[in-house]
Protein backbone atom coordinates (compact mmCIF):
# COMPACT_ATOMS: atom_id res chain seq x y z
CA UNK A 1 0.00 0.00 0.00
CA UNK A 2 1.21 3.41 -0.90
CA UNK A 3 0.02 4.91 2.36
CA UNK A 4 2.21 2.60 4.42
CA UNK A 5 5.22 3.35 2.26
CA UNK A 6 4.71 7.06 2.65
CA UNK A 7 3.73 7.09 6.33
CA UNK A 8 7.39 7.26 7.49
CA UNK A 9 7.88 10.25 5.21
CA UNK A 10 4.92 12.03 6.73
CA UNK A 11 6.25 11.24 10.20
CA UNK A 12 9.68 12.51 9.20
CA UNK A 13 8.16 15.70 7.87
CA UNK A 14 6.40 16.30 11.17
CA UNK A 15 9.43 15.38 13.26
CA UNK A 16 11.82 17.57 11.24
CA UNK A 17 9.46 20.53 11.51
CA UNK A 18 9.15 20.01 15.26
CA UNK A 19 12.92 19.74 15.79
CA UNK A 20 13.61 22.82 13.68
CA UNK A 21 10.87 24.77 15.46
CA UNK A 22 12.27 23.80 18.85
CA UNK A 23 15.69 25.09 17.83
CA UNK A 24 14.13 28.38 16.74
CA UNK A 25 12.14 28.67 19.96
CA UNK A 26 15.24 27.97 22.06
CA UNK A 27 17.16 30.67 20.26
CA UNK A 28 14.23 33.03 20.83
CA UNK A 29 14.35 32.28 24.56
CA UNK A 30 18.12 32.55 25.03
CA UNK A 31 18.73 35.42 22.66
CA UNK A 32 18.17 39.05 23.65
CA UNK A 33 15.31 40.90 22.05
CA UNK A 34 15.59 44.67 21.81
CA UNK A 35 14.36 45.75 18.41
CA UNK A 36 15.00 49.38 17.60
CA UNK A 37 13.99 51.38 14.58
CA UNK A 38 17.47 51.37 13.10
CA UNK A 39 18.05 47.71 13.84
CA UNK A 40 14.92 46.53 12.08
CA UNK A 41 15.35 48.79 9.08
CA UNK A 42 16.17 46.89 5.86
CA UNK A 43 19.91 46.63 5.31
CA UNK A 44 21.01 48.75 2.42
CA UNK A 45 24.75 49.11 2.89
CA UNK A 46 24.24 51.57 5.73
CA UNK A 47 22.23 54.04 3.65
CA UNK A 48 18.63 55.02 4.23
CA UNK A 49 16.43 52.53 2.35
CA UNK A 50 15.14 53.92 -0.93
CA UNK A 51 11.73 52.83 -2.11
CA UNK A 52 10.02 49.51 -1.37
CA UNK A 53 12.06 46.39 -0.77
CA UNK A 54 10.16 44.25 -3.23
CA UNK A 55 10.18 45.44 -6.77
CA UNK A 56 9.60 44.21 -10.30
CA UNK A 57 12.19 41.94 -11.81
CA UNK A 58 13.57 41.68 -15.35
CA UNK A 59 11.71 39.38 -17.73
CA UNK A 60 14.81 37.26 -18.32
CA UNK A 61 14.24 35.51 -15.01
CA UNK A 62 10.76 34.59 -16.15
CA UNK A 63 12.09 33.22 -19.42
CA UNK A 64 14.57 31.02 -17.57
CA UNK A 65 11.72 29.68 -15.45
CA UNK A 66 9.61 28.89 -18.51
CA UNK A 67 12.52 27.08 -20.12
CA UNK A 68 13.00 25.13 -16.91
CA UNK A 69 9.35 24.07 -16.73
CA UNK A 70 9.43 22.75 -20.27
CA UNK A 71 12.46 20.61 -19.58
CA UNK A 72 11.04 19.57 -16.23
CA UNK A 73 7.92 18.24 -17.91
CA UNK A 74 10.02 16.59 -20.59
CA UNK A 75 12.12 14.80 -18.02
CA UNK A 76 8.98 13.50 -16.33
CA UNK A 77 8.21 11.61 -19.53
CA UNK A 78 11.75 10.27 -19.55
CA UNK A 79 11.48 8.70 -16.10
CA UNK A 80 9.00 5.87 -16.87
CA UNK A 81 10.77 5.28 -20.13
CA UNK A 82 14.16 5.00 -18.38
CA UNK A 83 12.74 2.48 -15.91
CA UNK A 84 11.28 0.36 -18.69
CA UNK A 85 14.07 0.92 -21.22
CA UNK A 86 15.60 -2.52 -20.70
CA UNK A 87 12.38 -4.21 -21.77
CA UNK A 88 11.66 -2.01 -24.75
CA UNK A 89 12.59 -2.80 -28.32
CA UNK A 90 14.60 -0.51 -30.59
CA UNK A 91 11.26 0.99 -31.58
CA UNK A 92 10.82 2.34 -28.04
CA UNK A 93 14.14 4.09 -28.38
CA UNK A 94 12.99 5.52 -31.73
CA UNK A 95 9.84 6.90 -30.13
CA UNK A 96 11.80 8.71 -27.45
CA UNK A 97 14.24 9.85 -30.11
CA UNK A 98 11.42 11.52 -32.06
CA UNK A 99 10.12 13.02 -28.81
CA UNK A 100 13.51 14.54 -28.09
CA UNK A 101 14.02 15.66 -31.68
CA UNK A 102 10.77 17.68 -31.70
CA UNK A 103 11.82 19.38 -28.48
CA UNK A 104 15.30 19.96 -29.83
CA UNK A 105 13.82 21.96 -32.72
CA UNK A 106 12.18 24.31 -30.23
CA UNK A 107 15.37 24.41 -28.20
CA UNK A 108 17.48 25.42 -31.19
CA UNK A 109 14.90 28.03 -32.19
CA UNK A 110 15.07 29.52 -28.71
CA UNK A 111 18.86 29.47 -28.83
CA UNK A 112 19.02 31.19 -32.21
CA UNK A 113 16.44 33.75 -31.13
CA UNK A 114 18.66 34.68 -28.22
CA UNK A 115 16.37 33.33 -25.52
CA UNK A 116 19.35 32.00 -23.63
CA UNK A 117 21.40 35.16 -23.73
CA UNK A 118 21.74 36.84 -20.39
CA UNK A 119 22.30 40.51 -20.83
Amino acid at each position, binding site marked *: *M*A*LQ*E*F*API*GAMLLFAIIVASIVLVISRIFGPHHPTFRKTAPYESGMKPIGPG*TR*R*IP*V*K*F*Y*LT*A*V*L*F*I*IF*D*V*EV*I*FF*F*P*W*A*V*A*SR*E*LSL*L*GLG*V*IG*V*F*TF*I*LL*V*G*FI*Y*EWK*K*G*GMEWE
Partner: protein
Amino acid sequence: MIEINAQSIAFAILAVLTLGGGLGVVLNRNLFRGAIWLMVSLFGVAGIFVLLSAPFLAAVQVLVYIGAIAILITFAVMLTRSMTNLGERFVRRTAGIVVAVLLFFFILLGTILPVWGVDGTRYDDVSAPAENVATTRELGVALVDGNQFVLPFEVASLLLTAAMIGAIVIAREDEE
Protein backbone atom coordinates in the same frame (compact mmCIF):
# COMPACT_ATOMS: atom_id res chain seq x y z
CA MET B 1 -20.63 4.74 5.66
CA ILE B 2 -17.18 6.17 6.04
CA GLU B 3 -14.92 3.94 8.02
CA ILE B 4 -12.46 5.60 10.35
CA ASN B 5 -9.02 4.22 9.66
CA ALA B 6 -5.57 5.56 8.78
CA GLN B 7 -6.64 6.01 5.18
CA SER B 8 -9.67 8.14 5.94
CA ILE B 9 -7.86 10.22 8.58
CA ALA B 10 -5.05 10.91 6.11
CA PHE B 11 -7.61 11.80 3.48
CA ALA B 12 -9.35 14.21 5.86
CA ILE B 13 -6.08 15.99 6.66
CA LEU B 14 -5.11 16.20 3.00
CA ALA B 15 -8.56 17.39 1.97
CA VAL B 16 -8.35 20.17 4.55
CA LEU B 17 -4.90 21.10 3.25
CA THR B 18 -6.09 21.14 -0.35
CA LEU B 19 -9.31 23.07 0.21
CA GLY B 20 -7.79 25.36 2.86
CA GLY B 21 -4.95 26.17 0.51
CA GLY B 22 -7.43 26.89 -2.24
CA LEU B 23 -9.39 29.21 0.02
CA GLY B 24 -6.15 30.93 0.98
CA VAL B 25 -5.41 31.56 -2.70
CA VAL B 26 -8.81 33.06 -3.36
CA LEU B 27 -9.16 35.13 -0.22
CA ASN B 28 -5.65 36.50 0.06
CA ARG B 29 -5.08 40.10 -0.91
CA ASN B 30 -1.36 39.62 -1.29
CA LEU B 31 -0.37 37.90 -4.52
CA PHE B 32 2.80 36.34 -3.20
CA ARG B 33 1.05 34.90 -0.18
CA GLY B 34 -1.60 33.62 -2.54
CA ALA B 35 1.13 31.78 -4.44
CA ILE B 36 2.31 30.19 -1.20
CA TRP B 37 -1.22 29.07 -0.36
CA LEU B 38 -1.40 27.56 -3.83
CA MET B 39 1.64 25.46 -3.00
CA VAL B 40 -0.07 24.23 0.17
CA SER B 41 -3.08 23.25 -1.88
CA LEU B 42 -0.97 21.47 -4.49
CA PHE B 43 0.88 19.65 -1.74
CA GLY B 44 -2.45 18.33 -0.50
CA VAL B 45 -3.23 17.08 -3.99
CA ALA B 46 0.13 15.27 -4.06
CA GLY B 47 -0.85 13.56 -0.81
CA ILE B 48 -4.16 12.47 -2.29
CA PHE B 49 -2.29 10.92 -5.21
CA VAL B 50 -0.31 8.92 -2.66
CA LEU B 51 -3.55 7.73 -1.07
CA LEU B 52 -4.74 6.62 -4.49
CA SER B 53 -1.62 4.45 -4.81
CA ALA B 54 -0.17 6.67 -7.52
CA PRO B 55 3.19 7.66 -6.01
CA PHE B 56 4.62 8.50 -9.42
CA LEU B 57 1.94 11.12 -9.97
CA ALA B 58 2.49 12.41 -6.44
CA ALA B 59 6.18 12.94 -7.13
CA VAL B 60 5.34 14.57 -10.45
CA GLN B 61 2.87 16.82 -8.66
CA VAL B 62 5.55 17.99 -6.23
CA LEU B 63 8.28 18.26 -8.85
CA VAL B 64 6.33 20.01 -11.58
CA TYR B 65 3.63 21.92 -9.74
CA ILE B 66 5.33 22.91 -6.50
CA GLY B 67 8.91 22.90 -7.74
CA ALA B 68 8.35 24.50 -11.13
CA ILE B 69 4.91 26.01 -11.72
CA ALA B 70 4.89 27.66 -8.30
CA ILE B 71 8.32 29.16 -9.01
CA LEU B 72 7.04 30.43 -12.33
CA ILE B 73 4.00 31.93 -10.61
CA THR B 74 6.16 33.77 -8.08
CA PHE B 75 8.29 35.07 -10.93
CA ALA B 76 5.14 36.19 -12.71
CA VAL B 77 3.94 37.89 -9.52
CA MET B 78 7.19 39.79 -9.37
CA LEU B 79 6.65 40.94 -12.93
CA THR B 80 3.41 42.67 -12.02
CA ARG B 81 3.39 46.22 -10.79
CA SER B 82 1.43 46.10 -7.56
CA MET B 83 1.92 42.65 -6.16
CA THR B 84 1.33 43.33 -2.50
CA ASN B 85 -1.78 45.49 -2.46
CA LEU B 86 -4.40 45.07 -5.09
CA GLY B 87 -6.15 48.34 -5.68
CA GLU B 88 -9.93 48.06 -5.99
CA ARG B 89 -11.89 45.00 -5.05
CA PHE B 90 -13.70 42.89 -7.58
CA VAL B 91 -17.25 43.77 -6.63
CA ARG B 92 -19.70 41.91 -8.89
CA ARG B 93 -20.87 39.81 -6.00
CA THR B 94 -24.16 38.45 -7.40
CA ALA B 95 -22.58 37.32 -10.65
CA GLY B 96 -19.78 35.72 -8.68
CA ILE B 97 -22.17 33.80 -6.46
CA VAL B 98 -24.22 32.58 -9.41
CA VAL B 99 -21.12 31.34 -11.24
CA ALA B 100 -19.83 29.67 -8.07
CA VAL B 101 -23.10 27.86 -7.41
CA LEU B 102 -23.38 26.70 -11.02
CA LEU B 103 -19.81 25.49 -11.02
CA PHE B 104 -20.31 23.66 -7.75
CA PHE B 105 -23.45 22.03 -9.14
CA PHE B 106 -21.67 20.84 -12.28
CA ILE B 107 -18.74 19.46 -10.32
CA LEU B 108 -21.14 17.67 -7.99
CA LEU B 109 -22.95 16.22 -10.98
CA GLY B 110 -19.69 15.16 -12.54
CA THR B 111 -18.62 13.45 -9.34
CA ILE B 112 -21.88 11.71 -8.56
CA LEU B 113 -22.89 10.50 -12.01
CA PRO B 114 -19.91 8.23 -12.67
CA VAL B 115 -20.32 6.69 -9.22
CA TRP B 116 -24.00 6.00 -9.79
CA GLY B 117 -23.32 4.65 -13.20
CA VAL B 118 -25.45 5.16 -16.28
CA ASP B 119 -27.14 1.79 -16.39
CA GLY B 120 -27.25 1.04 -12.72
CA THR B 121 -23.75 -0.40 -12.52
CA ARG B 122 -21.69 1.09 -9.74
CA TYR B 123 -18.12 2.07 -10.45
CA ASP B 124 -17.15 2.83 -6.90
CA ASP B 125 -16.25 -0.76 -6.14
CA VAL B 126 -12.73 -0.33 -4.84
CA SER B 127 -12.41 -3.73 -3.24
CA ALA B 128 -9.57 -4.71 -5.55
CA PRO B 129 -7.56 -1.58 -6.28
CA ALA B 130 -4.35 -3.54 -6.73
CA GLU B 131 -5.43 -4.64 -10.21
CA ASN B 132 -5.82 -1.08 -11.37
CA VAL B 133 -2.52 0.12 -9.99
CA ALA B 134 0.07 0.41 -12.72
CA THR B 135 3.75 0.48 -11.88
CA THR B 136 6.04 3.09 -13.35
CA ARG B 137 7.53 0.39 -15.54
CA GLU B 138 4.15 -0.41 -17.08
CA LEU B 139 3.64 3.29 -17.63
CA GLY B 140 6.95 3.50 -19.47
CA VAL B 141 6.03 0.56 -21.69
CA ALA B 142 2.59 2.02 -22.38
CA LEU B 143 4.02 5.40 -23.35
CA VAL B 144 6.06 4.05 -26.25
CA ASP B 145 3.79 1.18 -27.24
CA GLY B 146 2.34 1.66 -30.72
CA ASN B 147 -1.08 0.40 -29.60
CA GLN B 148 -1.34 2.58 -26.50
CA PHE B 149 -0.11 6.10 -25.86
CA VAL B 150 2.56 6.72 -28.42
CA LEU B 151 0.61 9.39 -30.29
CA PRO B 152 -0.34 11.46 -27.22
CA PHE B 153 3.24 11.08 -26.11
CA GLU B 154 4.64 12.61 -29.29
CA VAL B 155 1.95 15.28 -29.32
CA ALA B 156 3.00 16.21 -25.79
CA SER B 157 6.47 17.01 -27.06
CA LEU B 158 4.91 19.12 -29.82
CA LEU B 159 2.94 20.98 -27.17
CA LEU B 160 6.08 21.59 -25.13
CA THR B 161 7.86 22.91 -28.21
CA ALA B 162 4.95 25.25 -28.90
CA ALA B 163 5.17 26.50 -25.30
CA MET B 164 8.89 27.09 -25.66
CA ILE B 165 8.45 29.07 -28.88
CA GLY B 166 5.52 30.97 -27.36
CA ALA B 167 7.60 31.96 -24.37
CA ILE B 168 10.39 33.38 -26.47
CA VAL B 169 7.97 35.25 -28.73
CA ILE B 170 6.24 36.87 -25.76
CA ALA B 171 9.38 37.69 -23.82
CA ARG B 172 11.38 39.06 -26.73
CA GLU B 173 8.54 40.90 -28.45
CA ASP B 174 9.41 44.39 -27.28
CA GLU B 175 13.01 44.29 -28.38
CA GLU B 176 12.48 44.18 -32.12
